[in-house]
């Protein structure tokens, strides 16, 4: 029998720093809710709005798989591995922090607000050599389809990480129905609604709502509005 937890948009942690308006799905920085620590190995889901030209100066990370998905605008990234890059909406960036890496991330545009999702997963192996990757995604491939954008496999046509996790993005027409099969036994799915309204396993979810589902091998999905967009994170439930 599948189990689930609903995460409504207005129950997320919120921090407005002026230049940064952040919503935290799980405890992060000064937002601490013991009931919202993680969903399996998914530890952080931050939905950040960053003003033009603003951002995070050089800061360190270790032992975390960090995935960044810009929804609008572009990120200017620079790190201690020598990478200097711009990541635009429609692209995905991953960084395995491993033994330690320092990076900065800024809104690359002076006058357009940047909206990004930053996701942190606990790694399946500690102290790996830090690595960086980014990939442009074929956004047409997610029309009425869960397009796989991340996996544990370097051979797959997507970015990869040190964790048995698979991410998929889909954009759907109204009334489109489908099913998503969980990739690995023991994994659960955290479904985050980027836009529109959808029904997942009988639960109606609106923009920025989420549902975590586990103890099942599939989920049912229906788009209730046009241009419903959803990010699925298929992650191990055991830490």
């Amino acid at each position, binding site marked *: 029998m599948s189990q689930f937890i609903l995460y409504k948009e207005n129950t997320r942690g919120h921090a407005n720093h002026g230049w940064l308006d952040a919503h935290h799905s799980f*405890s992060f920085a000064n937002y*601490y809710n013991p009931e919202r*620590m993680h969903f399996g190995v998914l530890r952080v889901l931050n939905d950040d709005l960053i003003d033009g030209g603003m951002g995070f100066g050089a800061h360190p990370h*270790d032992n*975390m798989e960090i995935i960044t998905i810009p929804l609008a605008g572009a990120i200017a990234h620079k790190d201690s591995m020598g990478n200097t890059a711009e990541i635009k909406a429609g692209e995905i960036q991953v960084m395995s922090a491993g*033994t*330690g890496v320092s990076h900065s991330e800024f809104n690359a545009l002076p006058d357009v607000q940047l909206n990004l999702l930053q996701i942190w997963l606990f790694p399946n192996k500690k102290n790996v050599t830090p690595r960086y990757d980014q990939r442009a995604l074929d956004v047409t491939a997610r029309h009425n389809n869960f397009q796989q954008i991340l996996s544990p496999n370097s051979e797959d046509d997507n970015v990869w990480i040190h964790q048995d996790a698979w991410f998929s993005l889909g954009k759907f027409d109204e009334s489109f129905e489908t099913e998503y099969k969980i990739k690995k036994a023991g994994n659960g799915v955290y479904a985050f609604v980027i836009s529109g309204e959808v029904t997942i396993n009988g639960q109606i979810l609106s923009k920025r709502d989420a549902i975590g589902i586990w103890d099942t091998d599939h989920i049912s999905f229906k788009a209730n509005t046009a241009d419903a967009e959803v990010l699925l994170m298929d992650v191990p439930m055991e830490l």
Partner: protein
Amino acid sequence: MQTTILYIGRDTEITIVMNRLLNARPEWKGICVCTDEEAVSVFKEQTVDLVLLGNGIDQECEQALKLKLEAIKPGIKIIQHYGGGSGLLYGEIMTALS
């Protein structure tokens, strides 16, 4: 009451940041070191309420260090710090102390 937190991590830059973050809160006192020898010395000589294991400590060293620390003062919580910065720090410490 101030909580004394001992952080051990191999990366000097991250250790400096952790020292700044831990000591930025008046309720915490952070002592941050890079080597196991320094950690054992601090643990022997000072009151420590919580130990955070940071980056770059391999499994063998981690086990050996835990055994040493537990032998000196049994019952002090030793937890893994993930992320290397402020994002998860408060939650990790609050959870460990609750």
